[in-house]
């Protein structure tokens, strides 16, 4: 995606400034999911499995088009299906491609205690490095979108990588390539926001979806996977997309003030004990005024 390595730094025998310096594009990448054109075909799911080398999972019939209940450690990408009946009785089929949102403020990364198990790249991708994962699942606690899934056999947590292995080689994610309706787009964050805004304007102008909007929640610093929704006021209709997601408050307390309070308290305790010893010294044993004579210890 990025041509960072080929950006010119210096040119020999060249007068004046280096052409192209400081004119580089925004390297922040983004995936747009336009749910208004999603037909729920699941081509993205298949492409995801193929690229990542996972088998297809067995489906569960629950009288809807929902093929399986949830994401899994080897299933990063799932279409959430919801039949929504509006107040006027009209029915809409809402389909949303669910998966990691690649938050700019990733709760998983905040919560993770393992060195290098979660990596946030400058381009916005948040990736799990299973080699460093210790299986504690704090990431699950930190995630406001219920995304990371645990493999109980290997004790490792997995989720969508946004095809970091493809993007790093200048390719777009596998799901993007497979989408037949063009509801998935991939590019720089600015371009994709632009594209999404144009689509939202189009929806408002030409359809009845007057409250269409872009889902790029500011509570997690924005995301590198954004949605175009028919109704931005009700994201929860799309299979439980949270309306205003945040890294849970308790997780922020835990990883913020409590850490510092604890560190200071432990250090103060150790220093306090040392200072106390230097000031007061050890306790003395008072010798008995009348030292008892050594007595033969025989049963009475």
């Amino acid at each position: 995606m990025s041509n960072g390595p080929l950006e010119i730094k210096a040119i020999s025998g060249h007068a004046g400034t280096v052409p192209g310096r400081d004119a580089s594009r925004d390297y922040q990448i983004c995936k747009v999911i336009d749910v208004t054109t999603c037909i729920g075909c699941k081509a993205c799911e298949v492409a995801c499995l193929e690229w990542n080398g996972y088998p297809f999972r067995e489906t569960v019939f629950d009288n809807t088009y929902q093929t399986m209940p949830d994401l899994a450690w080897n299933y990063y990408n799932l279409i959430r299906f919801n039949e929504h009946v509006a107040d006027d009785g009209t029915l809409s089929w809402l389909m949303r491609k669910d998966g990691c949102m690649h938050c700019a403020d990733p709760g998983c990364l905040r919560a993770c205690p393992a060195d290098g198990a979660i990596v946030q790249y400058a381009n916005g991708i948040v990736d799990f490095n299973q080699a460093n994962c210790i299986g504690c699942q704090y990431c699950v606690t930190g995630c406001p979108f219920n995304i990371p899934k645990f493999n109980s056999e290997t004790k490792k947590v997995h989720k969508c990588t946004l095809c970091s292995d493809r993007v790093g080689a200048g390719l777009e994610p596998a799901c993007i390539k497979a989408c037949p309706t063009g509801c998935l787009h991939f590019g720089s964050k600015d371009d994709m926001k632009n594209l999404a805004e144009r689509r939202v304007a189009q929806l408002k102008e030409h359809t009845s979806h007057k409250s269409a909007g872009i889902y790029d929640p500011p509570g997690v610093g924005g995301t590198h996977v954004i949605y175009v929704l028919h109704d931005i006021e009700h994201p929860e209709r799309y299979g439980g997309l949270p309306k205003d997601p945040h890294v849970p408050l308790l997780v922020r307390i835990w990883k913020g003030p409590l850490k510092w309070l604890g560190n200071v308290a432990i250090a103060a305790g150790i220093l306090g004990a040392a200072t106390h010893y230097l000031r007061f010294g050890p306790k003395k044993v008072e010798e008995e005024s009348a030292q008892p004579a050594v007595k033969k210890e025989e049963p009475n």
Partner: protein
Amino acid sequence: MATASHYVRADTIQRYTFRERIMHWLTAGVYCYCLATGLAFYTPYLFWIAVVLGGGPTSRFWHPIIGLGFVAAAVWMHTVWRRDMEVTETDHRWLTRVNDYATNQDELLPLQERFNAGQKLFYWLMYYGAILLLLSGIFLWFPEYIPFSLAWARSTMVLIHEIAALLTIGGFIVHLYMGLFLVPGSMTAMTEGYVSRAWARTHHRLWYIRATGGDSPRKNEAEPG
């Protein structure tokens, strides 16, 4: 000497039986393992401890299991020391004068039984700490069984686990300091089992009187066995 009681000797008194010492050091060992691995998960600056102890995944695997060992040891300790640890009215008076104890003016304090009020407080801190760590720890052990609708329980339990751990660490620092530095003789009491008579008289007069039958060594009748 052959048939002498192991309990009271001419110049020493047995403070902790073999069983109590095993119990104490077992509890100490499993606590220290959980403390070390727990600190590794607590802050990135101490994650190297997990690496030293066999790696992050290994530490994550054993921490809860050894933690159960700590709870079991705490329950064992409770069956043995529960009576000795009951907080009495004298302890309340002792605690109001804890400042005198901290400044080594022990003679101003009410006479103490086998354990003084500070030791009792430490005991109950660790006992209730163990219960809190167990209850919250179960949630941290098997988070995959907590549905997303109960996600608040996960973060609440993480917070409780860490606060409880920090409280026990506070007690542990004081315990180590007192055992190793502040009260000479208490370390050998827990390793070899014996304290000098003078030590017992100074720090635990009521227990000393009870154990020896009084200040005079002649009242050795009180000794068991």
